[in-house]
């Protein structure tokens, strides 16, 4: 019994030390500029499952654990917006049983989240599901809409979960909505004056009009885009929004991601901060 108690005390002490060391590290790192928005591509769950002889589902579950850690570190260090690429429209091409598994997992996690709403709202996390939500399986969509509604008034930190999203879908959709908006305006002007205002046709749709209709109008452009597993492509994610964004590809598979990758990513951002600020001003 004595041994057990002292073992417990030891582990509690180690946890405390670990936590303090982490806080000190964050305090040092945040002396420099901290990114406002970090985006993550959660790549490597299946490879992780293969590596450790788990079922594919086990890989996704391990990925979820890593996601919780990474989110915690981001919010602790002061990042306001975190975006995660949870499910791409391209992923619907996977085997139906895998798609079903991921949908079920998402539903389970969102419903778990909904059970803790008082705590969530206390910490001010606003959750947004970004993408073609209609494509999600109904129970997931319903849970997602509930979660968005329940956290709508929070403003401390934002979690943007990209589901059924690709830039290939986002950009044409923004064009469609801009066209719809413009034709609505033109129709109104025509009814008012009797004939169309000639200027409308000359002005045309501008970049700002398109950006008003993008899914990501709810957040500033990302400062860092992290893709795990060492892959170096964007895979149809945030291609429009990454004009001045640092791209970081750590070799760790997503379930292996943790504190060091978050810190390293932020240090890379700080290293390039002055250069990218200069580029933003020149635009």
């Amino acid at each position, binding site marked *: 019994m004595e041994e057990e108690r002292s073992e417990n005390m030891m582990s509690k002490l180690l946890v405390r030390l670990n936590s303090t060391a982490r806080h000190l590290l964050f305090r040092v790192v945040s*002396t420099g500029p901290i990114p406002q928005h970090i985006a993550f591509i959660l790549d490597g769950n299946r490879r992780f499952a293969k590596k450790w002889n788990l079922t594919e589902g086990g890989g996704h579950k391990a990925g979820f654990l890593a996601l919780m850690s990474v989110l915690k570190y981001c919010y602790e260090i002061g990042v306001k917006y975190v975006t995660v690429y949870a499910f791409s429209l391209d992923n619907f091409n996977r085997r139906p049983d895998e798609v079903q598994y991921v949908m079920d997992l998402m539903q389970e996690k969102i419903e778990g989240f909904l059970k803790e709403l008082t705590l969530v709202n206390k910490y001010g996390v606003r959750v947004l599901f970004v993408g073609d939500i209609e494509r999600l399986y109904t129970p997931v969509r319903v849970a997602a809409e509930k979660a968005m509604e329940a956290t709508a008034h929070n403003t401390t930190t934002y979690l943007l979960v990209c589901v059924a999203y690709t830039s290939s879908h986002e950009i044409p959709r923004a*064009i469609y909505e801009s066209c719809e908006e413009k034709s609505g305006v033109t129709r109104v002007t025509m009814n008012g004056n009797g004939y169309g205002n000639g200027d409308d046709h000359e002005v045309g749709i501008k970049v700002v009009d*398109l950006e008003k209709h993008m899914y990501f109008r709810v957040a500033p452009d990302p400062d860092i885009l992290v893709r795990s597993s060492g892959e170096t492509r964007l895979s149809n994610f945030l291609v429009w929004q990454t*004009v*001045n964004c640092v791209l970081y590809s750590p070799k760790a598979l997503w379930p292996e991601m943790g504190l060091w990758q978050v810190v390293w990513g932020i240090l890379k951002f700080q290293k390039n901060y002055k250069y990218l600020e200069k580029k933003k001003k020149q635009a």
Partner: protein
Amino acid sequence: MPLSSHVLHSTPLDARSLLNMGVTEDFRRTFFRTTAKDNVMFILLWHVLHLILRVIYLAQEVLHAIQSYLITNGFVTTYQDLNLERVRYLAIVIDSDEARQISEVIQLLEWLSAIGVKKVCLYDREGVLKRSQGVIMERFSSAYLSNEDSKIDPILSKTQLKIEFEFVSISDGKEAVAKAANVLYNKYYLDGDTEKPFFTEADLSEALENLEPDPDLLLIYGPARCHLGFPAWRIRYTEIVHMGQLKHKKYGLILKAIHKYTKVKQNYGS
């Protein structure tokens, strides 16, 4: 670091666990308990941290230089046999300030031509390369290729093949998509009540009127690993590699980047 099995089999983390980790409380504890003297210490430590970072990057540069030397001079033969068929279209992003060193740009293009790359898309944000189009095209016109070059630069002793160029700048990015939006508007919205389709990827691709394919591989020459506004629609599935600054470019590292690309297997999400 691999997750040990006992973590995987324990109760899965959920929202309660995340929040019980006391996110905001930790934040407060970390940031609001320090004094002015502590601040000076933290600033010093931050500078030390970034100094260490710079040393690490310097060491990496040295290693790259050695590696490139070994590859260029044939000591490492892994990268000699490139499967160039896979690189149908190579894109280069250069920081605009660095792009003003036209001689460096031309040397880079000469290397690419020596490797056997046939189609290159050159991008810089401000259009410096577009404005230097004349100089670059002249250098690569067949009349100019002579034996003089191979004496100066051993890399050019290999046969120089003709190389096709495309010059792109920031106006070909978001602005081009806005133009395409107007094309689509004029096509579907101006004649009263014709059917207005929900625009698809194909509609936008057509409206962009770009006849060139999407690049397979994008090499970035500049201080940061950032594509600086390369036309978004064309790099959705492009592999992106940061090569460092243009003045420190290395032939061996280009071979390595191309070789690595030819080994990549994309699932395209499925």
